[in-house]
Structure formats: C-alpha cells, structure tokens
C-alpha cells in the first residue's frame, strides 16, 4: 500500500491553546480517510496545515504523488474548506474556470469539464448566472466542483456535508464514492460520524487536538470491548435479572424493550443463548456500538469530557 500523504507529529498552538497536539497519520493512495472529531477538535487547523495555508509549529507533512516523497504540489490537491467561499458577483462557470486555472488547468479544459460537472449536479442551467442568484445548497455544489475540477490526486474535504439537506448529503456521498472509484484519494473531516463512517476505509478521531482513536472502522470496533444489546419481548416479562449479569449495563428500559451495553466475557452467541434461556425474546440484536458512541466512551475513559449533542443529530459530537 502506497501512502500519498503522511503526517508526522503535527502540532499547532494559538496562544495558550493547543489546537493540534502531536498527531500522526497517513492516507493510502485511493483510500477514503475520515478525520473525525467534535467541533473545535482541531480538524480544520490540521487540514489547513496540510494544505500549507497555516504554518505548523512542529511536525512534518509529506506527499507522494509520483511515488517519491516530497513537498506539497498544490495543483495535485483539491480542497473544500469548511469556510465556503466563491466570488458571488461572478458567473458560476467563470468562478470554476478561474479556480481551475490557478491549479494549472487550461481554460478550455476547465470550461468543458466544468459544464460536465454542472450537468451532473443538476446546475447546467445556472452556468452563466452570477453565483449570488443560486441557493446556498447550489452554491455548495459549485464549491464542491471547484475542489475536484482540476482532477486532483488527493482531495481534502473539510465538513463536506454541513449545510446540505439529507437528500443532497446522500447524493454527495455517492459522488465521493465515484471519485474514489476513479482512483482519487480522499481525506475528509466531519463531526457527523454517522454520515461518514460508512464512506471511510480508515478513521482518525481527534479531540482537543489529540488522537483518540485511529485505524479501519472494523479494527476500531473490534478493539472496543463492549457490545450494544437491543431486546424486544412481551411487556409482562420480568427483566430484573438483566442487571445481575456480570458486565451488563442497562441504558434504557421500557415496557417490552430494553437497550443494554455488554462488556463481559461472553461471546455474542453465548450472550444470545443466555438471554434466550432466561426470557422469551421476540427480537435480539447484538452489535458493536456506532462510532460516535465508541468515541464518547473512549474520551470519558481517558478523563476528557465528551458528550453527545443529543438532539436531532444523535451522532453529532460536542465537548464540554
């Protein structure tokens, strides 16, 4: 596996606040890597340092576009910043052609490819309109096109789904998958973990600028010792025994259903058998918890304060 981007011991401090604290990771060519963490975790600062927009206090970032490690070649990298921005008083296609020209692409190529992308994202009719005439979601799509139009080898998407409605979030995920299928390497940052965990081949979770977890999604889940257990049963069932099972925690219990967390020594099949012997079950699910719960539990175990935002987006993380 060839690494296209390697980050070693990267650190950045603003005043007394350590925004990024000694993080190291690498991205394999053709892979999608998620840089995940709550708001203010240091994701954007890390990405800006990778893009050379912010100087690092310490650490090293190396790229390997043609097999030889070297410095950043901006023409080979695409970037969708968290702070979206284009020329609002300029026509959509002119925006795209200029930004592509700065990446070294000839105007004719950018115009042709730009039109193709606009068509693909349903914006062909707006190509010659000023950007300010477009809705916010449409502008975001134009911004997305600007980051990939020059056919980069590596793309950094900083919070690519924020501001998009669920339909467009799904659409954007599909486009990212297509980019990956075309061989583009992707590093994306997000705080909505449920949106990206299915997209990513590997994940790097940070909090307060420090690494919390990293690896493939499967590895992270395998390493996490607890399972979630969801039960459905007749409301008349006695469930008081559940609390007596070593390693079992009851998270939520209602008439005919219970959500549990199991961290004991039994395997999932042994646990299913045990519960089946003690009560009449209508439905049972034993699975590793979602990534955001693993993140929160890990942060709590380390004594760092982590919490879920707990409303509409249950997997949106916040810190206290």
């Amino acid at each position, binding site marked *: 596996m060839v690494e296209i981007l390697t980050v070693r011991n990267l650190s950045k401090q603003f005043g007394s606040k350590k925004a990024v604290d000694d993080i190291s990771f690498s991205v394999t060519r053709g892979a999608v890597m998620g840089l995940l963490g709550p708001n203010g975790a240091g994701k954007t600062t890390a990405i*800006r340092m990778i*893009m*050379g*927009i*912010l*100087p690092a*206090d310490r650490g090293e970032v190396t790229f390997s576009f043609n097999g030889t490690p070297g410095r950043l070649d*901006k*023409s080979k*990298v695409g*970037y969708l*910043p968290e*702070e*979206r*921005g*284009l*020329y*609002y008083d*300029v026509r959509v296609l002119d925006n795209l052609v*200029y*930004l592509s*020209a*700065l*990446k070294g692409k000839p105007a004719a190529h950018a115009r042709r490819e730009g039109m193709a992308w606009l068509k693909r994202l349903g914006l062909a009719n707006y190509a010659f309109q000023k950007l300010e005439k477009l809705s916010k979601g449409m502008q975001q799509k134009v911004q997305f096109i*600007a980051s990939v139009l020059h056919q980069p080898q590596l793309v950094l998407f900083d919070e690519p789904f924020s501001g998009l409605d669920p339909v467009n979030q799904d659409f954007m995920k599909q486009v990212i998958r297509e980019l990956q299928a075309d061989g583009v390497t992707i590093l994306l940052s997000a705080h909505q973990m449920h949106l990206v965990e299915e997209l990513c081949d590997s994940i790097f979770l940070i909090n307060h600028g420090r690494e919390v977890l990293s690896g493939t999604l499967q590895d992270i889940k395998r390493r996490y010792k607890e399972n979630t257990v969801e039960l459905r049963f007749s409301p008349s069932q006695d469930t008081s025994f559940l609390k007596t099972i070593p390693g079992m925690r009851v998270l939520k219990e209602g008439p005919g259903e219970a959500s549990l967390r199991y961290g004991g020594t039994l395997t999932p099949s042994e646990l299913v058998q045990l519960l089946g012997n003690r009560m009449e079950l209508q439905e049972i699910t034993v699975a590793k918890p979602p990534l955001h719960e693993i993140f929160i539990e890990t942060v709590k175990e380390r004594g760092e304060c982590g919490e879920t935002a707990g409303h509409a987006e249950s997997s949106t993380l916040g810190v206290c």
Partner: protein
Amino acid sequence: MRLQDTLKVARWEFVKNIKSPTFLALTLAMPILMVIGGLVGYLGTASAQKEAQQVAVIDETGALYPILKDYLSTSPVTTIAFAAADRDRLSDEVRAGTYAGYLHITQEAVLTGNVPYYVKDTRDQRAVALSEAVRYSVTRYRLLQAGLSPDQVRLVTAPVVLQVRSLAGEAASWVEMLVPYAVTLILVLAAIFSGQVLMYGVMKEKRNRIVEILLSSISSLDLLLGKLLGFAALGLIQVTIWMAVGLAVAARFIDFGRLSLSAADLAPAVLFFVGGYLLFASLYAAAGATMKDAEETSQAQGLVLIIPMIPLFTASAIIMAPNAFWVRVLSFVPPFTPVTVLLRMAATTLPWWEIAAAFAVMVLSVAFFIIAGARIFDRSILQYDRTISLREIGRMLRREYS
C-alpha cells in the same frame, strides 16, 4: 514565487474590476465632473465679465471721467456721468437696478487711491470688471496732473514682466513645472480611488471566504503581487482616460503645438508615479487584509487611506522651499517619497543623485511593503471575523505570530 500564478491573478483582477460599477463610475464620472466643474467656473466668470452693465460716475476732478470712458470703450461696461448733486437720486436708481452701481471720484480719492464704488449688493462680482479700469484711469490722471506728456504716460504705464531665465538663457518652462505637478495630483487621485477599490476587494474576498480557496492554490505573495499588477494596469487605464479627457479639454485653451514635451521631462515623473502607485497599493492591500469590513476603515488601519494626501497638505510649503531640510528629509521617508519628490520636481531642478537616491528608497520600500504586506496578508486573511490590532501586525512582521 511563480510569475505564471501572479499573472493569472493580475488578469482576473483586471477583467473583473474593469467591469465593476465602482471602477467605471470613478473612471468615467471623475473627468466628466472635472470638465463640468471647470466649464461651469469658466463660463460663470466669462459671463460675469461679458455681462453688459451701466455704471454711473460722479467725477469731481472733471478730467478723469474721459480717461475711464475711453478705457472701457471696448468692454461691455457703459458709463454715464452725473453731477455730485445727483448722489441721492443715484442711490435710488442703483437700488432700483437701473445702474449696476455708481463711482464717486473725488480729489481725495485720487490722492489716497481709495475710490468708492456704491452697489446694491457688495457681493456682486460684476464690480471686478471695473477694477482694472479705475486703477489705470487714476494712475494715468495722476501722471498727467504731474505734467507728463501722453507719450511719457504711455511709457510709464506700459506693463513690466520679470522674465526668469536659466543661465543658458532659456525662459522658464511651465511644462517642467506642470508635468510633475499634474502627475502628483493624478497619482494621489488614482492611488486613493483605485487603492480603495483594491482595499475593499481584499476585504470582500476575506468576507466571502474565497481567500482560503485561493491560498490553497497559490502563495500569498503571488496573490498579493497579482492583485497589485492587476490594479496597476487598471490605474494606468484610469489615468490615461483622465489625461486624455483633460488634454482634450485643455487643448481648447492651450496651444499644445508650442509645447515641447521630451521623454526626459516625462521619465522621472512617470517612474515616481508607477513606484508610488505600487507603494500605496501594497499598503492598501495589506490594510484590507487586517480589516473585517468596510466600517473598519474608520479605524486606525483606515488612516492609511490618507497617507498619499499628507505631503499634499504641505504642498505650498514644499513648492515655496523645495530644498528646505525638512522637505529633503520627507523625500526619504518611504510613504511620502513619491508625492514629495514629484512636488519638488515641480518647484525646482533636483540634482540627479537626489532623484536617484529617492528612487532607490522608493524601490526598496515598494519591495519591503510588498513582502511585509504579503506576510500580514498571509497571517491576517484567515482571521475572518475580527480586525487585527496594530500590536498583532507588529508581531506578524517580526514573525512572532502565526
């Protein structure tokens, strides 16, 4: 630094801004306003001088009135003589508008030189038309009374002009004075107008967040240089339009065929114009990067807008004493160098070494301001929601801030 990237930015800025309403308004409206203002002033003065008016004259000397009448015979002012007893009636007639006013010439007035002219409204500018006529007539009357013959009087009253010539015998060239002075004014106007467009453009890019995208493709130095070159080209076009309109209008009053404008006359002024323009533009761009929005221009950084104007405030002192010690010092203080040197060029012939030294200071300061500007630009431009303090700017320049 990549020249290619700089030129791409320059081209973009040029094409985008040449179509902008602000630039078009400033470029086209300014000469139109100047021409309209000039024409109104000229026509107003001309019409006041050409307006026919009747003036009553009470001449107690008995001999001055014919001289005055003769002098005014080719002017639109007609005179009618009255006796001293008619004063009260004349006051009524002036009040009624029959006469523009009445002159009362007495022996005492001739002796003291204070000739009263009574009008309905003392702010009436038509009185100007009488001034020279009265001065001439009283002088001629005095000389005739002193016993001089008419030929002697003509000789005495013939105009005297001090002709300033160089040691080589050449007459003073007002072109030599006019070119640097006109270039100074145009430089200050162009720098302020297009500099403001540049400054607000940088602020807008910061507010629109586009700048982060740009910096992900090119360096801050290339971005800043590209902007400066783009705006320098815009400024050049603006100035060309202003000058073309100015010369076209001036050609109606001045015979340009008699002027000999050599490259040597123009070259120093043009060099200081270009250098000065780049210097002010780099200052404005850097200031724009430190500000959050247009309202912030009223704060400390906004004061950079008036830097080009500062030497103009002392322009008359600089022209009166172009080689005074403080003026020489001001010539080597970078932000003031171009305007001060141009004003001095208008007032005197500067030694070549002084022009060269000032030019060197200006080139170095342009390089310094561009590099410092890029550093401030680089560090400030991502601080979207606030204005950078002067202290922070100092730390940025000392590389203590990131």
